[in-house]
């Protein structure tokens, strides 16, 4: 119910109560006044009758001629007053007795007049006395109860007063209850809403106003809830955006770190490469010269030492060439290809290695995978690199799973998972850094670093997930159509 209506109902109740009380009081007063009027008229009738008897006595006992006029006067009054109370009298004694009374009064009047003309008529006098006594008796019976009437009035007044007190008390109690209810029905929802605004203001966005109903405050509460839901949704998307931003920032930092590491490494590699080439030539020349010389002391020893130098140079060459390849911005050769074919080719290349270690390679290439446009050779190099790592990681009879798919309409996915020993969590984040290796002396620590560089160059991203004892999964994201 609307607040306006609530107030109207409250006010209406009060008004009704006041009107009811007024009506009740009016009726009570009306009853009392009617009763008083009856008592007065009854008293008048009794008085008229008494006066009439007094003048009758004056006429009959003392033969006072003047009394006849007084008698006429009081008989007229008596008649008039009886007329006034006719209804009440009829109610008391019945219409027949009332007619008899009227007849007796008429007869009395005529008899009085007859006596006034002939005072010596004893029979008539006796008749008048008899009639007068009968009239007196009837009047006493009808109107002689003033005393009772006063008692009745007092009782009635008492009852009215008590009723009035009760009504006032009821008025106060009902008023208080209604006021409290009305006040509560208006102020409770406001308090509820206030609580809601405080909580939401304090950051508790899950809090809802529980107001129901159809009044203005409930409607405000519902508007508040809608506002709050929107606020909640906005905050959620904001939090999501911030999380994404953080992730992107971390990726950016990571890729910037790797890029600068790459630049430094390539710079060092370039500087090292030339002296390395000289060492290579000098050692080679020594080999040449000793090779064509005649036998001399320790010739074989020298040859094997030089072999050692050349082998070390070869190792260094592998490193510097990788690093120089990473840093150099090369033109990619873009072509349209099936990613599944690339992956199948890689599987073909590694056939022998897989067989040697009895590794089961599962593939999951959806046939409806769209063609992509990228550098096939470079992509192959990356996948080959990662699968080779997986082959080295898993134990004999292990499993490697290669699958392709789409991340969304613009990005293709390659996933390479193995069930090898995995990489400890704290080391996973260093996987793509140059010279980081889990293979000990066997690896240069450049394979993934170079792969990372290639994927970046192709507009994609490469991530690794691993847990000790649970294998490693590499995920490569490649744009479906990369424009440099």
């Amino acid at each position: 119910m609307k607040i306006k209506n609530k107030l109207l109902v409250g006010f209406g109740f009060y008004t009704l109560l006041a009107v009811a009380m007024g009506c009740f009081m009016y009726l009570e007063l009306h009853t009392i006044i009617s009763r008083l009027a009856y008592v007065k008229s009854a008293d008048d009738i009794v008085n008229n009758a008494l006066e009439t008897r007094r003048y009758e006595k004056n006429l009959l006992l003392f033969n006072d001629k003047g009394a006849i006029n007084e008698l006429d006067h009081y008989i007229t009054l008596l008649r008039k007053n009886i007329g006034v109370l006719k209804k009440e009298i009829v109610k008391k004694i019945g219409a027949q007795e009332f007619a008899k009374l009227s007849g007796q009064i008429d007869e009395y009047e005529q008899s009085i007049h007859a006596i006034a003309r002939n005072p010596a008529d004893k029979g008539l006098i006796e008749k008048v006395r008899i009639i007068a006594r009968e009239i007196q008796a009837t009047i006493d019976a009808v109107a002689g109860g003033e005393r009772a009437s006063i008692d009745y009035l007092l009782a009635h007044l008492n009852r009215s007063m008590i009723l009035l007190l009760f009504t006032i008390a009821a008025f106060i109690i009902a008023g208080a209850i209604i006021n409290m209810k009305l006040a509560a029905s208006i102020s409770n929802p406001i308090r509820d809403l206030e609580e809601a605004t405080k909580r939401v203001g304090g950051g508790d966005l899950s809090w809802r106003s529980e107001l129901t109903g159809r009044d203005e405050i409930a409607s405000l509460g519902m508007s508040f809830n809608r506002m709050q839901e929107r606020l909640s949704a906005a905050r959620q998307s904001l939090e999501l955006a911030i999380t994404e931003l953080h992730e992107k920032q971390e990726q950016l930092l990571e890729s910037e770190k790797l890029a600068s590491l790459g630049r430094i490494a390539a710079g060092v590699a370039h500087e090292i490469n030339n002296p390395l080439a000289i060492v290579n030539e000098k050692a080679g020349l020594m080999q040449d010269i000793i090779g064509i010389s005649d036998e001399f002391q320790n010739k074989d020893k020298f040859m094997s030492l030089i072999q050692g130098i050349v082998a070390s140079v070869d190792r260094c060459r592998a490193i510097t060439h990788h690093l120089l390849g990473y840093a150099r911005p090369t033109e990619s050769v873009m072509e349209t290809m099936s990613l599944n074919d690339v992956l199948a080719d890689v599987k073909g290349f590694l056939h022998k290695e897989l067989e040697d270690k009895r590794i089961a390679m599962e593939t999951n290439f959806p046939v409806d995978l769209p063609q992509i446009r990228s550098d096939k050779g470079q992509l192959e190099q990356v996948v080959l690199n990662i699968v080779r790592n997986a082959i080295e990681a898993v134990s004999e009879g292990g499993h490697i799973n290669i699958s392709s798919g789409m991340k969304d309409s613009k990005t293709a996915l390659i996933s390479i998972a193995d069930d090898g020993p995995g990489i400890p969590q704290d080391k996973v984040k260093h996987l793509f850094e140059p010279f980081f290796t889990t293979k000990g002396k066997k690896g240069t620590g450049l394979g993934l670093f170079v792969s990372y560089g290639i994927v970046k160059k192709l507009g994609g991203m490469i991530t690794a997930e691993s847990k000790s004892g649970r294998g490693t999964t590499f995920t490569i994201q490649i744009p479906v159509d990369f424009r440099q």
Partner: protein
Amino acid sequence: MTEVPQERTRVLIVDDEVEFASTLAERLQLRGYDVTAVYCVEDAFNAIRQSPPDVLLLDLIMPGTSGMEALMTVKSAAPEIFVVLLTGHLDIEKELEGMGLENCNFIMKPVDISKLITMIDGATREMPSEKRLEAS
């Protein structure tokens, strides 16, 4: 194919790293090639003008005129010279393909001598010089 000793393959090495160029020259000489080493692009141009070599080993990164520019100059002036670019990078092949140059190849530093010999001999259609080295 027959070996003609008096018509030895003439090789010109151009590299600003003197130690590298001279040592490589010596190694090739041991293998029977007629080798000259120069250490800047200008000297190389002079040498080519005086007597054009069969094979030019050209370092890609040098102070002053770059190896690529030198390559273009040589190729336009004397396309018959087989040029081997010495580079630190893996992927020069694609650039060369892109340029559409013929009679040209590359090898990475540090140089694998047997690979270089195969490349030179393949281009000049001579007997592998390794054999001459063994025979001598």
